[in-house]
């Protein structure tokens, strides 16, 4: 059904679906370390930024096609993820400490990107539109629709594969009670590192899509904390650590964000309204639906069947 949808949608609605799929993809990538493993990273924008900048710089200065650049970007993001994970997990930094470490690294990336003139400094990078598919650019927005859909399905497949294997069981054990997991012989450090690397790699790949879909990169947006919030809020609302949580969360929140932006940001001065909505949503979800939408819907469905 989703494959045929672009044939009937207006081009504006196609772009809304691109956002839904893309944020579901980023949310799913985050879900691997933040949801299944319960290591709350609040700095995933760092990986988007590293991936985006890598692919864009390679394309602009070395002429490397983003189709290859996206994997280089993903690999570099994974290296950064491994470094942050090493720092954080080596000392068993939990909860707040790990959150702060990830925020600190994202902020460091932002400051560095703002100050390195070779990658555009505070002005950022602009990619000229050529419409050449080799350059990850398409005349028809439906191409982006299918790529974003493919990304979302791929990340969900990765998460499903992890969930079914020992890897996934270990990650849930770490989330539920790390001490107990360690005591029964789960190599917690190794599996947290693996989760971090997979998650940051996928997020870095997403950065390439971000750069070549928007044609521009500014350090304050691509490394900023607001982007990290966008990434984590969808899986949280949908249900962190569940397979379809990020997807459901994105189907709820991405259109909502787009609507509030459309109605309030257009008027000028109301730019903050959609973030107020996010804030209220976070509070409501934490207080009333701490498990997120997917487990709640499952329970509701179970009740009607019984």
């Amino acid at each position, binding site marked *: 059904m989703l494959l045929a949808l672009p044939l009937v949608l207006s081009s504006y609605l196609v772009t809304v679906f691109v956002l839904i799929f893309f944020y579901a993809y980023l949310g799913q990538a985050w879900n691997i370390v933040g949801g299944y493993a319960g290591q709350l990273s609040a700095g995933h924008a760092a990986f988007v930024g590293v991936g985006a900048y890598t692919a864009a710089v390679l394309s602009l200065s070395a002429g490397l096609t983003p189709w290859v650049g996206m994997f280089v970007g993903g690999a570099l993001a994974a290296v950064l993820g491994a470094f942050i994970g090493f720092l954080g997990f080596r000392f068993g930094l939990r909860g707040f400490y790990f959150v702060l470490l990830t925020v600190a690294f994202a902020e460091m990336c932002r400051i560095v990107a703002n100050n390195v003139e070779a990658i555009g400094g505070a002005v950022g990078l602009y990619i000229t539109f050529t419409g050449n598919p080799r350059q990850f650019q398409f005349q028809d927005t439906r191409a982006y629709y299918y790529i974003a859909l493919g990304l979302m399905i791929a990340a969900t497949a990765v998460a499903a594969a992890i969930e079914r294997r020992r890897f996934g069981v270990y990650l849930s054990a770490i989330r539920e009670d790390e001490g107990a997991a360690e005591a029964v012989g789960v190599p917690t450090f190794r599996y947290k590192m693996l989760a971090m690397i997979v998650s940051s790699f996928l997020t870095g790949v997403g950065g390439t899509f971000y750069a070549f879909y928007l044609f521009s990169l500014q350090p304050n947006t691509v490394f900023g904390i607001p982007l990290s919030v966008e990434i984590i809020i969808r899986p949280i609302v949908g249900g962190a650590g569940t397979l379809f949580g990020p997807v459901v969360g994105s189907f709820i929140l991405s259109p909502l964000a787009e609507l509030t932006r459309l109605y309030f940001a257009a008027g000028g001065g109301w730019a903050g309204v959609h973030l107020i909505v996010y804030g209220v949503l976070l*509070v409501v979800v*934490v207080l009333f639906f701490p498990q997120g939408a997917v487990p709640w819907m499952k329970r509701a469905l179970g009740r009607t069947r019984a």
Partner: protein
Amino acid sequence: MAEGLCAEQVRLPATQGLILDPVLVVQAVVSGLLFGGVYSLMAIGLTLIFGVMRVVNFAHGDLMVWAMYLAWLGATRFGVDPYVGFVGAAAILFVAGFVIQRQLVDRIVDAPHEMQILLMLGVALVLENTALVAFGPEPQRVRTPLTQAAVWLGPVFVDVGRLVTFLVAIALTAALWLFLYRSDLGRQMRAVADNGYGAHVIGTDVRHVSAVAFAVGAACVGAAGALVAPLLPFQPPTGLQLSVTSFNIVIIGGMGSVLGAFVGGLIVSVAESLGAVFLNPSMKELVSFALLVVILLVRPAGIFGRRAI
């Protein structure tokens, strides 16, 4: 965003070619130290809240920015100088903190860390963006006659506003110290921080003490915000950066340690001040992050931290 924070941190002549001028270094250290009083006060508020409730107040910097806007409203609408108005800002934030604790934080004190963090993140988003809707994105700044004047302190040139800010912040820190160590309520607060269950068993009203601790923490940041408003141009996103800076400070100093927050505030401020001189001013925050990473590597419990994490 970052540019707003740094421009006024160190008021110096152009620094080109003066890499190792000792006067410049002394000037930067003094300037950073004086600014650090506010950082200390802000971080003590955070560490107090964390110590008593084990909840990290992600809305800390946003509360501070609201205090800055209150000082700004007081100065522009009612002609109240922020060096007087900080009392009012602290009082308003005290009430706000009490309400936030009772209505929201109290419900999740026993929830997992992630849930607490997400709740506070939600509160932070609401506070930051209501400020954006109410006051707009333009950087604001509170004018007071004191920041126009300057005095020579030995070889260095110090503006009076910075000096007064420092002295008031230190006086408030001392008052807070007396409250925590000499008053009954302060003792109860430390008891809850030390062992919440034990304090409950011997008859401490933990809920009430927690609400007051959150309120006092918010009042600290309220006073700090109003005091720093004449020195630091601010806009709604400044809150997030102040939150991140206060987290840095308390981790460097040691989570839950009041002394650690005090010393950490001064250290981070001096480090940023020196960073603004020796690096690009917009890179000054990089210095405090580097400090953070070193601390996490060498001594994750922080300089004055006793507890294991």
